């Protein structure tokens, strides 16, 4: 990560978070306050497979962030992609997570819900499923909401994937602030309902929530074989 061939310069890296597959550092990149998301090599993996997985995911994450940006969603600006180190360097969003915003009553819950619904609408309309749409991955900066961590995102046309996003979001609301859940979700539906598959998504969402861990769905799937 050091200054290699003068292509880019990073100042001191400060480890912010260690996830299952990546490490998140805070730094300054060409003077810009930045985040480095570096995918970790796994000792247990064949080196060739390790490289393939980390490379594919780094590229996919950057691509999907760019696609989300093109469809009008605020995402951290990508500053540099270091394929050799499986790293994405991106803008540090100086704001507060929605989790904290709700926790500390910093914003009207329904308004926040509307903004999240707008993000989900644009995301799903562009055939992107985020995969981890929690209040921890939404950052409020001034009056703008940013979506982060596209590590589990994928291109999809599948209602199930969209409904899973909504389900994960709802579950994160329930665990953060059950008392504000209804207000936030009401706002969410106000904007998200413009999605052309809205009815189907909500139907599937009901299924997902009813079956808990997909129990019934998996059962009927396998018994139909």
């Amino acid at each position, binding site marked *: 990560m050091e200054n290699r061939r003068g292509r880019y310069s990073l100042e001191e890296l400060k480890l912010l978070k260690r996830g*299952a*597959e990546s490490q998140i550092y805070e730094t300054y990149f060409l003077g810009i306050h930045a985040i480095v998301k570096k995918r970790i090599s796994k*000792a*247990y993996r*064949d080196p060739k*497979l390790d490289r393939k997985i980390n490379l594919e995911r780094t590229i996919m994450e950057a691509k999907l962030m760019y696609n989300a940006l093109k469809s009008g969603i605020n995402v951290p600006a990508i500053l540099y992609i270091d394929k050799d180190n499986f790293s994405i360097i991106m803008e540090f969003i100086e704001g507060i997570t929605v989790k904290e915003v709700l926790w500390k009553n910093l914003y009207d819950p329904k308004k926040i819900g509307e903004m999240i619904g707008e993000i989900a609408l644009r995301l799903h309309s562009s055939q992107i499923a985020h995969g981890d749409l929690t209040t921890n991955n939404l950052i409020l900066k001034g009056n703008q909401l940013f979506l982060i961590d596209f590590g*589990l995102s994928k291109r999809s046309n599948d209602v199930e994937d969209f409904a899973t996003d909504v389900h994960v979001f709802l579950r994160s609301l329930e665990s953060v602030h059950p008392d504000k859940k209804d207000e936030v979700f009401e706002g969410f539906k106000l904007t998200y309902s413009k999605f052309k598959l809205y009815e189907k998504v909500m139907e599937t969402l009901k299924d997902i929530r009813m079956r808990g861990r997909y*129990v019934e769905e998996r059962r009927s799937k396998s018994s139909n074989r």
Partner: protein
Amino acid sequence: MKVLGIESTAHTFGVGIAEDKPPFILANIRDTYIPKSGGMKPGDLARHHATVAPDILAKALEEAKTTIEDIDGIAVALGPGMGPALRVGAVVARALALKYNKKLIPVNHGIGHIEIGYLTTGAKDPLILYLSGGNTIITTFYEGKFRIFGETLDIALGNMMDVFVREVNLAPPYVVNGKHVIDICAENARDLIDLPYVVKGQDMSFSGLLTAALRAAKKYPIPDICYSIRENAFDMLLEATERALALTEKKEIMVVGGVAASVSLRSKLNLLAKDWNVEIKIVPSQFSGDNGAMIAYAGLLALKSGVTIPIEESVVKPRWRIDEVDIPWRN
């Protein structure tokens, strides 16, 4: 207190006897059906189990140096598994319970694997990998039940490997000198072939990997594919395991089920353990594959908590999930 347990969910008919004081397991007798070619046909399994049942039962009582009169309850694995095979165990168990007036104890096969794991590894609060021919589950105990963090969305990892080696005529037998034939075959690999790698959050999917590997078997050297399929499958599992570790912050990983015997899985897990600073606890090989002792032991725990089932309600449950079972003895 002594419980006799009957296992017949898949290829193995086993009878075990457990007691609520050391050494806990008094007998563990089994007979495993191995088809001469192809996979397991449910009808053949049932015939095999029904044929060996009386003998296995007698040997288990003999090994435990006890009589059926001294047994306090009859535990039986009512699921998950193959219907015709399950029914043989259920019929034997019901008959014994009726004739000798014993309590009948319903046991979930997966819970059997997990409980014998706790008993034999001494794990306290582990993240559990339950890996067998029919199951690939990442679970942990929380508030009365085993909660599933991740699992296969289609076929089990063990089944996938078995089907592959069989289809390319390397098996049966699937295990030679304690090693799975996929590991033996992989020893001569020279290159990693590009195969699907599918992790969805904490869940895994193996069916696409199998299909792609069988197709690749026509184009590439078989050892390369054995190696690649194994690496992909285990790495998917380990990645899902890491996600669950990050979430649960457990300090132990307990591995149970037939795949726990895999040498290559162990060495991978040891590398993961170093990285996460966790302990790996693997069920001993005599209790890793399907066996009656684990059903007896889980049945013993259940009986001590008052879990029994009336004969007329003791139907087999081919798709009984571990997260449906209340675990009153573990709180």
